[in-house]
C-alpha cells in the first residue's frame, strides 16, 4: 500500500488544480466577511445562498493581495459610491489556488463594479415595489409642509460637517427669518444607520406637535455609502411619518429608497436649509403682497370717496341754485295768481256796486217827487191813506222843491 504524506497529497491537489484550472474566472458571489490585514491585503469570505437566503450553497475564501487591493478598492468606491462590505453582491475575477497549509482559496485579480451597481438598483427597485404594494410609498409626499416651516427637527450626527452647514445656512439667511432647530442624533454611516435613524424618527414622532418638518442630513464623504438608505424598514418609517420628511444625504447618483419616499429630496444639507428658507420666503412674499394690496386698495378707495365728496361739494351750489330758481318761480306764480284774483274780485265788486247804485238811485224819493208825486206827513208820520186823517189835522205836503202846510176841512 502506497502511502503519501499530507504535504505530498496537498501538493498533488495543488498541481492538479494549477494544471486543470489555470485560467481566471469571473465569479458572482456575496461577501459574507471582509477583513483588511495590517500588511495592506484584504481577506474576503464569499458565499452563495439559496433563493430563500437562509442556506449556504457554496462558500470560499478569497484573498486580495496588496497591489490588487490598492487598485480595485478606490476604483470600486468611485464607481459605486460604496465600500465593499458584508451582504454586497460582487463580480470578481479570480484565479483558483491551493496552498498546502492554508488550503483552497481564490485570489482576486479584478472587480466589475457595474454588477454591484446593478444589484443595488435591483434591490432598490424591489424595495420600492414592496412599498408600493403596501400602499405607503406616496404617504409622506401627500403631507403639506406648513406655511411657515420654522420649527425643524434634524436627524444627523452632531459631529457631521453637514449638520453645521445646515445650521449656519439657516441662521445666516439674508431675510432675517427665525428658525428653531433641534438635533436628534443618529449614526449616518454603516450598518447601524437603519436602526439608529428609525430610533431618531421615533423620538421626533413622540413630540411631533413641536415641529413643522423633519430633515435627515449628513455630510458628504469620499464614499457616500448610500445603500444603508436603501432599506425597507427605514423607508417604511419615513413614508408613514406624520411630519414631512426632507432628505439631504449628499449624493448625486440614483435616489435612495429613503429619498424616493421622503416628502422632498435635496442633494446636500445646505440645499435642505435653502429649501426651508425658500418655503418661509414664499410665505413672507405672500404676506408682503397682501400688505401692499391692502394698502393700495384702501388708498384707492379713500381717493374714490374723496373724489365723490368733492364732486358732491361742487355740485351742491348749482343744485341749490336750481332749487332756488324753482322756488322763486313758484312764489312769483303765486303772487301773480293772487294779484289777478284780487283784480277780478275788485272789478266784479265794482260792477255790482254800480248796479246797486243804479237801483238805489231809482228808488230815491226825490226822483219820485220830481215826477209829480208828493209825500204827506202828519205829526211827523208819513200818511199812507185818507182814512189816517180827520178834520182839523194839519198836514205837510212835501214836493221836490219844498213843502206846504194845509188843514183838512
Amino acid at each position: 500500500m502506497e502511502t503519501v504524506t499530507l504535504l505530498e497529497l496537498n501538493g498533488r491537489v495543488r498541481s492538479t488544480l494549477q494544471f486543470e484550472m489555470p485560467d481566471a474566472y469571473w465569479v458572482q458571489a456575496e461577501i459574507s466577511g471582509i477583513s483588511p490585514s495590517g500588511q495592506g491585503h484584504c481577506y474576503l469570505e464569499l458565499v452563495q445562498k439559496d433563493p430563500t437566503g437562509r442556506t449556504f450553497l457554496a462558500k470560499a475564501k478569497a484573498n486580495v493581495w496588496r497591489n490588487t487591493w490598492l487598485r480595485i478598492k478606490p476604483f470600486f468606491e468611485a464607481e459605486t459610491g460604496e465600500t465593499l462590505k458584508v451582504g454586497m453582491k460582487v463580480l470578481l475575477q479570480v484565479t483558483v489556488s491551493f496552498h498546502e497549509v492554508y488550503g483552497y482559496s481564490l485570489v482576486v485579480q479584478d472587480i466589475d463594479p457595474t454588477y454591484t451597481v446593478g444589484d443595488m438598483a435591483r434591490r432598490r427597485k424591489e424595495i420600492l415595489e414592496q412599498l408600493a404594494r403596501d400602499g405607503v410609498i406616496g404617504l409622506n409626499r401627500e403631507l403639506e409642509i406648513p406655511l411657515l416651516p420654522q420649527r425643524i427637527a434634524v436627524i444627523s450626527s452632531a459631529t457631521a460637517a453637514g449638520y453645521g452647514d445646515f445650521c449656519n445656512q439657516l441662521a445666516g439667511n439674508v431675510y432675517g427669518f427665525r428658525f428653531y432647530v433641534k438635533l436628534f442624533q443618529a449614526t449616518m454611516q454603516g450598518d447601524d444607520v437603519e436602526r439608529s435613524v428609525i430610533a431618531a424618527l421615533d423620538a421626533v414622532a413622540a413630540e411631533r406637535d413641536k415641529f413643522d418638518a423633519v430633515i435627515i442630513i449628513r455630510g458628504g464623504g469620499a464614499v457616500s455609502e448610500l445603500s444603508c438608505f436603501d432599506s425597507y424598514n427605514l423607508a417604511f418609517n419615513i413614508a408613514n411619518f406624520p411630519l414631512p420628511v426632507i432628505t439631504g444625504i449628499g449624493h448625486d447618483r440614483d435616489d435612495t429608497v429613503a429619498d424616493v419616499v421622503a416628502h422632498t429630496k435635496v442633494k446636500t444639507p445646505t440645499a435642505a436649509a435653502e429649501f426651508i428658507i425658500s418655503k418661509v420666503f414664499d410665505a413672507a412674499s405672500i404676506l408682503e403682497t397682501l400688505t401692499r394690496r391692502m394698502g393700495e386698495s384702501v388708498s384707492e378707495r379713500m381717493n374714490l370717496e374723496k373724489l365723490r365728496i368733492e364732486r358732491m361739494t361742487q355740485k351742491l351750489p348749482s343744485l341749490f341754485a336750481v332749487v332756488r330758481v324753482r322756488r322763486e318761480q313758484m312764489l312769483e306764480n303765486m303772487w301773480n295768481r293772487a294779484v289777478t284774483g284780487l283784480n277780478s274780485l275788485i272789478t266784479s265788486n265794482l260792477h255790482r256796486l254800480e248796479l246797486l247804485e243804479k237801483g238805489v238811485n231809482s228808488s230815491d224819493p226825490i226822483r219820485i217827487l220830481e215826477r209829480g208825486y208828493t209825500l204827506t206827513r202828519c205829526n211827523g208820520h208819513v200818511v199812507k191813506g185818507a182814512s189816517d186823517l180827520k178834520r182839523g189835522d194839519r198836514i205837510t205836503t212835501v214836493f221836490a222843491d219844498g213843502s206846504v202846510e194845509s188843514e183838512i176841512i
Partner: protein
Amino acid sequence: MKRLEETVSRIEENKMDIDQIGESLKEARELIKFCKDKLYKTDEEIKKILEAED
C-alpha cells in the same frame, strides 16, 4: 394668513362701507404684525420648549 387674504379681498371688492374698512384695516394690520413677528422675532416660548429636554 388666510384671514388676512380674505380681509384684503373684501376690501378690494369695494363692497364695504367706510366704517367697515376702518375695522378691517385694523384687523389686517394686527394679522400682518402677528405674521411678521412669527417670521422675524424669536419666540422665546418655542425656544424654551425645544431646549428644555436637551
